[in-house]
């Protein structure tokens, strides 16, 4: 960045410019008047806030994971890797790992592929695309408890889905969807896909809208259909963007599932719908085994990190 101002009049000169050698003016607030670093000090409150309330608790996870702490008011002792051993020996933990793996392996690809295709569709501006766009934002606007209410109304034993099945004579297919071990996890996955496609599609549509139109037209002249254009022409152009969106959805699905599980199935029946992030919640606030909870938290963090790196590698542009 360049500036025409001679150093000395502006506090934020180019790199290396000496800060103004003048004390705070009487009119200015003391900290805003401080010339050091061209007012960088103004960023300190935000940074402190962020470190204290976000980074601090994040670091605390690693400490608590090494403690034996059987409840808020119980005595705390150092446990080292003992919690890790307990967690790895616990069949519930492995069931949660399996559930999380299924959850991610189904929800994430379906969500991203469908959202990309819907996004491509909207970006072509077909008739009614404004209405579609308006509707696609809906899942991005409503809160998790409200989404859970929607699924509760649809899937509870006397809910919409069973009502619909009965009215077409398929009574034998009705089920207590959220309370059945074989479908509880599927319901949670359905919720993520239902809510995830809409908003992700809007993001893709917005990004596809900035891809030059000639690109698609050239492909069409060469005789490529929309299917080919969508995957072979447009996809490579926004590949890295798709990667970033996939990362965000990955993190959201991995960590956010706790809320849906808590609101809809409480992890049950048994532990058939317990995901890793719900296990963290459940062990901390229901079972009061804090060392266990935060050990899973650490593992979850590592899974998140590994997932991010993998996704980045997958979406790295081919050169």
């Amino acid at each position: 960045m360049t500036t025409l101002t001679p150093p000395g009049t502006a506090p934020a000169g180019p790199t290396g410019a000496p800060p103004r050698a003048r004390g705070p003016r009487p009119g200015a607030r003391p900290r805003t008047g401080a010339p050091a670093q061209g007012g960088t000090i103004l960023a300190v409150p935000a940074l402190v806030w962020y470190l204290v309330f976000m980074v601090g608790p994040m670091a605390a996870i690693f400490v608590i994971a090494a403690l034996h702490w059987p409840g808020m008011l119980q005595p705390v002792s150092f446990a080292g890797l003992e919690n890790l051993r307990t967690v790895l020996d616990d069949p519930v933990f492995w069931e949660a790992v399996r559930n999380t793996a299924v959850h991610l392996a189904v929800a994430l690809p379906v969500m991203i592929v469908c959202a990309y295709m819907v996004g491509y569709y909207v970006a072509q501006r077909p008739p009614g695309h404004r209405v579609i766009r308006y509707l696609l934002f809906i899942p991005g606007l409503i809160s998790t408890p409200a989404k859970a209410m929607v699924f509760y109304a649809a899937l509870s034993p006397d809910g919409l889905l069973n009502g619909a099945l009965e009215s077409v004579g398929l009574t034998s297919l009705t089920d207590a969807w959220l309370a059945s071990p074989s479908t509880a996890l599927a319901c949670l996955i359905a919720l993520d896909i239902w809510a995830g496609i809409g908003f992700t599609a809007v993001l893709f549509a917005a990004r596809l809208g900035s891809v030059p139109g000639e690109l698609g037209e050239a492909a069409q002249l060469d005789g490529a259909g929309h299917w080919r254009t969508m995957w072979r022409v447009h996809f490579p152009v926004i590949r890295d963007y798709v990667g970033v969106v996939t990362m965000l959805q990955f993190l959201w699905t991995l960590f956010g599932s706790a809320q849906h599980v808590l609101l809809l199935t409480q992890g049950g029946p048994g532990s058939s719908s317990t995901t890793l992030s719900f296990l963290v919640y459940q062990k901390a606030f229901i079972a009061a085994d804090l060392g266990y909870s935060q050990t899973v938290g650490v593992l979850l963090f590592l899974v998140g990190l590994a997932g991010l790196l993998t996704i980045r590698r997958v979406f790295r542009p081919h050169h």
Partner: protein
Amino acid sequence: MKLGKGWIPAHLLVWGYAVLLIVPLYYFLASAFKSNEEIFAHPFAPPTSLGFDNFVTAFTSAQLGLAVVNSLLVTGLALVLTLALAVPAAFALARSTSRLASAMEKVFSLGFLIPTFAALFPTFLLAAVTGLFHSRTFMVVFLPATAMPLSVVILVQFMRTIPREMEEAARMDGASTFAVLRHIYTPMCLPGIATVLLLNFLTFWNEYLYSLVIIGPDPAQRTVQVALPTLKAITGTDYGVLTAGTVLTLVPVWVVYTVLQRRMQQALVSGAVKM
């Protein structure tokens, strides 16, 4: 590009999905004005009368009125605090070219990779230690921290577009740093501030897990998102009341979305990916 016959399946699939999005909302809106019997007999029929009985029940049984006030308070104060922290920070980072400033900016943009829920329990401890446990106050203080990375990064991008000559001219007239922020940067990046406000309004209003754990069940303190699921336990399966309560929590978001549709859409799109 021309959309030929080959697009019919695409039209059907996309509109089918759109129907899946709109039907639950319609169902909720319609059911909020119906009794349980009507809901089960004709789930998708429009309500026959526009009685507000369900809303009244939802209001009284889960004390939703109080919860709405709490949510408005928490959301409003947290937004003010977010701006108070993020605007000066973005101002400093956008203008400074020092190495320290760019390191700070890095720290904020890495913040996108910290999922908010990860540190639920340690945050809960922090609330207990500071003595702000079981109160709205902690949420007012805490929520801006979660919003800091996104808010700062968005505002920095807006402020970088402001020509430096504007500031230099003001400096000639003897304006202080604070005056530059107040009279040049703030008015000129109002669209950025609006984006930050809209995005954070949504996240703060919709926040659930932290509010549940930290504010707890006290009806005098809890927010509407915490109060809403309790309706299920209180009313059993009175769908009329349940849906009326849900509709109530959606009203503020809906009003804002409808009034500021274009701006809100832009805000959501720009806020989702800033890495």
